[in-house]
């Protein structure tokens, strides 16, 4: 068993039994569920909107080359420098080189999951740069030296008491455990950082091919400040973020807000089309946009699962997933957790190492139903299972099914097996859940029902 699997299993077992964790997550998601449903109901037709969003993303992804060319041409025409990175290493080097050229010391970041994906902070800190996460949730998990728990709500696993203790220890400032006062502590710390930072770093939610714009969605205003104050701005985005037209945002912005946080619109939705232009009074002098592949093209090559690139990272599938809610975000050990993370991680990091995530699913389909762009998530989990076993069959499992196939296909074998099956049960009970039990993962927490000595067919024939 690879370490990825055993780590996943031990963390999942621990978290699933952690009642406190379950309570925190349940509380955090309860109000989300109410407002999300209310917002969905306010749409004249949420279902039609989903279909249109899915078709729009389909168009974007299935003509990705032309859209990316249009996007970069428009961006470059207004003085933006566009960089292309095939993998994380290249992206880190491009970004580090910009910082070296600018002789930067302090980088202020607004939330970007792509930077988590390429482990950017770690690489930059190793080179001696100071990296400050400005999103409150990201700031909190950065102080704890841990990755975000959830792609949209990074610190949802923590209580106000824990955050107060953290601020006291790390910042020496936490007047009380009121969320209001704790937020103000972070605001004060960050205002100083904004004024001194040399470089601002952002992610992106959408990239508009038609007009050459990067659209950023946020509630706090930290991305707005990041794109306004430092002299240099860097934006890192996955190549799948494109939308064909400016007007597509009229649909995608409210859908992202509704599915992701149950809001009618996120507080700030901002489209950037260049660095500071002639006649403008502020904004960065230089803007670098880094387009990241990092094996997205491998997922693109799988036509069956290509729609997983439609994902707008709203987090709706995480919020409804019974597995995510029980094992928690950190258990996955991936950048993108929950159903969509389980679908795409095997493509981004290797199928055999991450195939266990496809089994961490009840296949209930809640994720597929919640997805605002209609990604067929739970079927993709099944397809990943199929692909993994086709490429590397599990010997004993295959053998067991082959034997079962022979027995079940031959009436004579079947009738004998039916008659003597109960005799083997004491044997099964003797090895139950031990190393000798081939089904121990299942039988560890479950009893096999006793097999009756008489089959239903026999009972039916002999009744009266």
């Amino acid at each position, binding site marked *: 068993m690879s370490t990825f699997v055993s780590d996943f299993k031990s963390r999942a077992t621990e978290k699933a039994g952690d009642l406190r964790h379950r309570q925190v997550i349940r509380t955090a998601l309860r109000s989300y569920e109410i407002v999300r449903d209310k917002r969905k109901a306010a749409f004249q037709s949420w279902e039609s909107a989903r279909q249109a969003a899915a078709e729009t993303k389909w168009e974007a992804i299935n003509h990705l080359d032309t859209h990316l060319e249009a996007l970069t041409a428009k961006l470059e025409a207004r003085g933006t420098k566009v960089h292309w990175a095939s993998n994380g290493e290249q992206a880190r080097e491009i970004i580090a080189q910009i910082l070296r050229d600018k002789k930067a010391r302090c980088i202020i970041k607004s939330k970007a999951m792509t930077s988590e994906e390429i482990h950017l902070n770690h690489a930059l800190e190793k080179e001696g740069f100071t990296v400050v996460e400005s999103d409150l949730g990201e700031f909190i998990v950065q102080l704890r030296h841990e990755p975000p728990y959830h792609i949209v709500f990074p610190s949802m696993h923590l209580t106000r008491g824990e955050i107060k203790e953290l601020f006291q220890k790390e910042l020496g400032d936490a007047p009380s455990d009121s969320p209001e006062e704790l937020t103000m502590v972070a605001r004060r710390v960050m205002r100083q950082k904004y004024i001194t930072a040399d470089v601002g770093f952002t992610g992106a939610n959408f990239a508009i091919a038609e007009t050459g714009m990067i659209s950023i969605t946020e*509630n706090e*205003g*930290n991305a707005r400040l990041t794109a306004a*104050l430092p002299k240099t701005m860097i934006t890192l985005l996955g190549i799948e973020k494109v939308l064909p*037209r400016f*007007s597509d945002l009229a649909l995608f912005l409210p859908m992202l807000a509704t599915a992701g946080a149950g809001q009618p619109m996120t507080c700030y939705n901002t489209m950037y089309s260049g660095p500071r232009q002639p006649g403008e009074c502020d904004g960065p002098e230089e803007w670098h946009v880094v387009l990241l592949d990092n094996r997205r093209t491998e997922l693109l090559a799988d036509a069956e699962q290509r729609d997983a690139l439609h994902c707008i990272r709203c987090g709706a599938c995480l919020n409804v997933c019974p597995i995510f809610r029980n094992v928690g975000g950190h258990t996955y050990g991936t950048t993108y957790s929950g159903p969509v993370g389980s679908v795409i991680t095997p493509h981004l990091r290797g199928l055999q190492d991450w195939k266990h995530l496809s089994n961490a699913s009840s296949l209930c389909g809640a994720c597929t139903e919640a997805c605002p762009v209609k990604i067929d998530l739970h079927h993709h989990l099944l397809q990943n299972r199929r692909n993994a076993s086709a490429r590397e069959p599990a010997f004993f499992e295959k053998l067991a099914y082959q034997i079962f196939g022979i027995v079940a296909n031959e009436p004579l074998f079947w009738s004998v097996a039916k008659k003597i099956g109960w005799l083997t049960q004491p044997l099964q009970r003797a090895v139950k859940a031990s190393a000798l039990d081939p089904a121990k993962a299942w039988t560890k927490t479950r009893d096999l029902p006793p097999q009756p000595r008489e089959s239903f067919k026999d009972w039916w024939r002999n009744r009266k």
Partner: protein
Amino acid sequence: MSERENILGRIREALKVAAPLPGSHGDMTVHAATEPPANQAREWLPLVGTSVAEQFELFAKNAADLKADFQLLASRDELEAALLKLRDAEKWRRVASHGGELTDFACKTLGLPVTLTDRGYEVQEMEKCDAGITECDALIAQTGGVALTSRSAGGRALSVLPPHHVVIARREQLVADLPAAFARLQSKYAPDYPSMISFITGPSRTGDIERILVLGAHGPKKLTILCQ
């Protein structure tokens, strides 16, 4: 070969195999719509009412839900009174703003020292201002938010750095819904867009601590929209 060509090459190679259309369940006979799918967004987004009065009512309700302060004012005199009331209630000592017909009027009315952004400004100085006063491009009834740009609202920082953002708008800037707001921005600016376009829907907020709403996370704690 450059990385750009490598990536585009991999994309073109991958796209040689067609993907099933969404909702087709693998049946390739379904054809994509000839017009952009999102063009009909108006029919699916939340209802907005037909008359301007209804839309102002909806804007007021949505703004209140977002904890923004919206005041629909009948005249310049009322606008003047509203500004003075804000100044006195919050004891403003200095404000930041930009040149514009409505903002010039506001600055004159307030009679306070003003940091104007038009010809550049000191960040430290703007940070100390009690309010940022801007114009905008549109008020959106559907969301209760405003749309503004770096050109219409004095740059990128003015609407987020001071603790109170005051938007001064004209009645004819009200649009019904998001598609109308995008259309208005497009007809006003395309193809030479300002480098920043921002849809501001309520004052800055966060829910990162136990999902409890806190206003004024990084941006302004208060958003006032005065419409004359």
